[in-house]
C-alpha cells in the first residue's frame, strides 16, 4: 500500500504526460501480482466498494472529531478523503500497512453494517498518505488525470508490448487482470476474446499535406464531423465504443439496441438534421446535423426520451472489421467495402447508413467537389488505399484525411494565461475578441475564443515578451493586454452559443498568423463571424 500511495502522490504532482507514463510503467513492472492489477483498476476507476461512500467518511470522522471542525477542515481542503487522511488520529503503534490486495479484499468484504468498525481498522494501519490512497481507492474517485488510454500506454511501455495489443486484450478482462499480466509480464498466451463485445483499436489517417494521390489506387469518402465510433456485437451483447475505447453504449442506447448481427463496425456517430443533406449524396443518405447538435448528446450517462427524440443518433458506416465470426481486417478495403454494402440491407435503416464513395474521376475533380462542399456535417475528405488492410493506428500511405480549408478571421488579443508543462513560464494561452460594432465609433471587443497552439516556439517567445510588455491588468495567472495585437485565427466552423457573451463558439480555433502589421481597429467584427454560422 505504501508504494501505491507513493505512486498516487507522485502522479498528483506530475504534470508531464511522459513523466506520468514512466511513473506508472515503473510501478507496474516492479509491483507483484495481484497488487499491480488492483492498483491499475483503482487508477482507471474500475473498483467499486458499495459499503464505502463519501458519507461514510464524514460519519467516521465526526465520530472522532467535532463536526464543526470537520466541516471547516473539509471546506478548506476541498476533498473528503484528503481531509480525513489528515485528521485521522495517528495510531499509537508504528503502522503495519496492508498490501493493495489485502486492502481490496478487506474493503470488498465490508458491509453497511460493519463498515464503521472495519474501515477504521484499516485506517489505523496506515500513515497519512496511505490513508489518502485507501480512501481514494475505496470511494472510487481518483481524479488524478489518468485516462484509460494513458494507463494502457503505460502498461505497454512497462512490458514492451504493442499498445494495440493491450487495447485488444484489455477489454473483457476484469480486475486484477491476471490473464493480461500473465500474457504481458510472463509470456503466457493472450486472453481469449471470442464471444465478447470487445473494442478493436481504430485505424487512423495521416493528414494529406502536399501529397496528391491517384484515385485509381485510392477511394475517396466524405469525412463526417461527428464522433468516430465502433459498434460491436458478440455473445448477445452490443457495445458502442468511442475513439479512445470508452464504452458509450449508455449514452447512445438507440444504437446499441439496433444491431442484431454479430459484427464489428466502424463509422461516424451523427445526429439527424433536416437542413444538412450532404449535397453530394442527398439522394442516398438522410441528413446529418452539425457537430453542435451532436454535442447535446455527448457526455451524458443516461439519456431522456426527449433527448432521443430531439437529437436522434445514427451511425454512418465506414468499414466492417469482423462479420459473423470472420475477421476481415487483413483483407483489402475493396473486399471489406463490398461486404459492408452487402450487409447494409440487413441493418436498421434509421440507425445505420453508408458513407458513400465520392464519384470523382481524378484528383482535380475531387478537389473541385471538395471545394464546393459546404455542408456543416462534412469535415473534409478521406482517401483510403483500395488494397489496404484494416490496421490499428496510423500507418503511412494507407489512409489520408484531407480536411476542408479552415475559415479565417482577424481577432484582437485580449487576455493571456501561462501554460503548463514545458510552457509553464510562458504566456501561451490566448483569449481574443472581435469588435461588436465600429471600433472608430466606440465599439468594444467581445471575447470570441481561446487558442493555445498554431505558433512556433520562436513565435511563442515573441508573444510571451509582447504580453509582458503590454500588460494592463493582472488577475491571478491571467494578464489583460492593451488590445493592440491582431491574430489571424483559423477555425473549422462556428456555432451559435448561449454560453458565450459574444453568442458564438468556434470549433478548433488556432493562431494561424500573428498580424503585428495590422492595427487592432481593422480586426474583424462580430457580425462577420456570425455570418459564418450555418446551424
Amino acid at each position, binding site marked *: 500500500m505504501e508504494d501505491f500511495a507513493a505512486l498516487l*502522490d507522485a502522479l498528483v504532482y506530475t504534470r508531464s504526460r511522459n513523466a506520468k507514463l514512466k511513473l506508472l510503467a515503473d510501478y507496474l513492472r516492479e509491483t507483484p501480482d495481484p497488487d499491480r492489477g488492483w492498483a491499475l483498476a483503482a487508477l482507471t476507476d474500475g473498483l467499486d466498494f458499495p459499503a464505502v461512500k463519501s458519507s461514510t467518511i464524514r460519519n467516521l470522522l465526526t465520530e472522532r472529531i467535532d463536526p464543526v*471542525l470537520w466541516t471547516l477542515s473539509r471546506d*478548506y481542503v476541498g*476533498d473528503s478523503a484528503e481531509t480525513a487522511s489528515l485528521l485521522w488520529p495517528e495510531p499509537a503503534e508504528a503502522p503495519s500497512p496492508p498490501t493493495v490486495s489485502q486492502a481490496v479484499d478487506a474493503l470488498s468484504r465490508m458491509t453497511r453494517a460493519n463498515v464503521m468498525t472495519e474501515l477504521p481498522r484499516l485506517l489505523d494501519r496506515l500513515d497519512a498518505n496511505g490513508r489518502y490512497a485507501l480512501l481514494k481507492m475505496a470511494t472510487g474517485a481518483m481524479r488524478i488525470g489518468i485516462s484509460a488510454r494513458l494507463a494502457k500506454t503505460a502498461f505497454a511501455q512497462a512490458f514492451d508490448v504493442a499498445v494495440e495489443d493491450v487495447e485488444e486484450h484489455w477489454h473483457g478482462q476484469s480486475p486484477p487482470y491476471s490473464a493480461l499480466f500473465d500474457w504481458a509480464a510472463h509470456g503466457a498466451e493472450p486472453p481469449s476474446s471470442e464471444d465478447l463485445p470487445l473494442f478493436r483499436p481504430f485505424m487512423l489517417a495521416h493528414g494529406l499535406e502536399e501529397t496528391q494521390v491517384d484515385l485509381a489506387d485510392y477511394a475517396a469518402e466524405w469525412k463526417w464531423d461527428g464522433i468516430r465510433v465502433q459498434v460491436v456485437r458478440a455473445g448477445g451483447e452490443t457495445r458502442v465504443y468511442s475513439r479512445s475505447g470508452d464504452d458509450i453504449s449508455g449514452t447512445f442506447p438507440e444504437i446499441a439496441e439496433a444491431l442484431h448481427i454479430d459484427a464489428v463496425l466502424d463509422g461516424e456517430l451523427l445526429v439527424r438534421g433536416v437542413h444538412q443533406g450532404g449535397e453530394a449524396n442527398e439522394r442516398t443518405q438522410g441528413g446529418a446535423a452539425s457537430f453542435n447538435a451532436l454535442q447535446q448528446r455527448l457526455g451524458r450517462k443516461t439519456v431522456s426520451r426527449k433527448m432521443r427524440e430531439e437529437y436522434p443518433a445514427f451511425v454512418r458506416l465506414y468499414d466492417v472489421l469482423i462479420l459473423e465470426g470472420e475477421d476481415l481486417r487483413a483483407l483489402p478495403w475493396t473486399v471489406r467495402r463490398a461486404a459492408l454494402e452487402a450487409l447494409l440491407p440487413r441493418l436498421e435503416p434509421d440507425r445505420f447508413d453508408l458513407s458513400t464513395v465520392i464519384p470523382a474521376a481524378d484528383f482535380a475533380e475531387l478537389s473541385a467537389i471538395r471545394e464546393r462542399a459546404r455542408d456543416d456535417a462534412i469535415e473534409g475528405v478521406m482517401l483510403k488505399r483500395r488494397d489496404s488492410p484494416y490496421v490499428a493506428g496510423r500507418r503511412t500511405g494507407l489512409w489520408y484525411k484531407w480536411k476542408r480549408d479552415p475559415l479565417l478571421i482577424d481577432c484582437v488579443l485580449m487576455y493571456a494565461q501561462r501554460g503548463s508543462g514545458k510552457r509553464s*513560464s510562458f504566456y501561451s494561452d490566448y483569449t481574443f475578441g472581435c469588435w461588436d460594432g465600429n471600433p472608430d465609433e466606440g465599439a468594444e471587443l467581445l471575447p470570441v475564443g481561446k487558442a493555445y497552439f498554431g505558433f512556433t516556439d520562436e513565435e511563442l517567445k515573441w508573444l510571451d515578451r509582447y504580453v509582458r510588455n503590454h500588460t494592463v491588468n493582472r488577475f491571478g495567472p491571467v494578464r489583460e493586454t492593451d488590445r493592440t495585437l491582431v491574430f489571424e485565427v483559423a477555425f473549422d466552423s462556428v456555432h451559435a452559443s448561449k454560453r458565450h457573451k459574444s453568442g458564438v463558439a468556434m470549433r478548433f480555433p488556432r493562431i494561424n498568423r500573428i498580424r503585428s502589421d495590422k492595427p487592432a481597429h481593422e480586426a474583424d467584427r462580430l457580425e462577420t463571424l456570425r455570418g459564418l454560422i450555418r446551424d
Partner: protein
Amino acid sequence: MAREFSWIRPEPWGIHVVPADCWIDPARPVDRALVTHGHADHARGGHGETFATPETLAIMKLRYATEDGAVPVPYGERIALAGGVHATWIPAGHVLGSAQILLEHAGERIIVTGDFKRRADPTCPPFEVTPCDVLVTEATFGLPVFRHPPVEQEIAKLLAALAANPERCVLVGAYALGKAQRLIAELRRAGHHDTIWLHGAMERMCRLYEDWGIALGDLRLVSDARREDLAGSVIVAPPSALNDRWSRRLPEPITAMASGWMQVRQRARQRMVELPLIISDHADWDELTRTVQDVNPAETWITHGREEAMLRWCQLNQRRARALALVGYEDEDD
C-alpha cells in the same frame, strides 16, 4: 467597572496600547510602533519610533535603508513605556529576531505572540512559554488538518530527490526572510555541504543571518553559475520566481516549495509544485492548541489566519476566546 483589558484595543490596522499610545505591528505609519518580527506585513516602514529586537531592526534597516527612530530592545529586557506600561520582547521561535511582546499595565499581563512556532529552529532561539492574562495568538495554520511533519523528514525528501536526479536541480521556493535560511541551515545539519545556489533576492538576507552568527555554508548566486554547475544542486529562490522566466536558465528544475500550505495537495498543484516540502515557520494545529494550554491565559484572542476553528476549539475546551479582525497580514507564501 471598566471592561477588563480595556487598555489594549484591537483595531483593523493594528493593536493599540492605549495608555502608551503605541501600536503593535501596525499596517500604517504611526508615532510609536512595537514590532514583533521583520516580515514585511508586520514590520512596515515610516514610523516615528520603532521598538524591536536588534535583529529585527537590522532586518528592517536592510529593507527600508533607514534606522531613523530605531529603538533596540534585547530579548528579556523589560522597558518602561508611557502611561505605566511595561513591555518585554520574548523569543517566539518564528525567524531571526522574532518575539512575542509581553505588555504589563495595572497588574494585567497581555502577550501578543506575533508569528510563532514551537519546533526547534537552528536560526533563532525557541519560543518561551510565559504566563499571562490574555494571549493574543496567531492562527495561520489554525485548522486541525495542519500537522507539520518533522523537518528532518522533509529535508530527507529533498535530498532523496536530488540524489535520484543528478542531471537535474532542485529549485526550492522559500520565503526570503526566515524560511530560506532555516532550510539552508537544516540542509547543513543533515550533512549536505555542497554549494547552495541563491536567487539574487535571497543574498542580502542570507548575509545578514551570517553576520548574526548563523553559519549557512557555501552560498553562491545563480547569476554567477554556469548551467552545468547547477546540475545536482539545490537552488533557493522566492516562491514568485518558481514558474517565472528566471527559472528558464536552470537545468530541468524539479520545482519544490517549502511551506506549511504544501500539506494540501491541491495547494501544491496550484503552485505547479512537483516536490512539496511541508516546512513551516508557524505553529501547526497541535502547537497552537498546546500553546494555549501551556500558557493557560484567562482569555485567548485570535488574530490572522483561520480564526473560526481555533475559536471553536476554545469553546469546546471552555476557554474564553474572541477573534480579532486584523487586516494586512499576508500568509500565502509561508
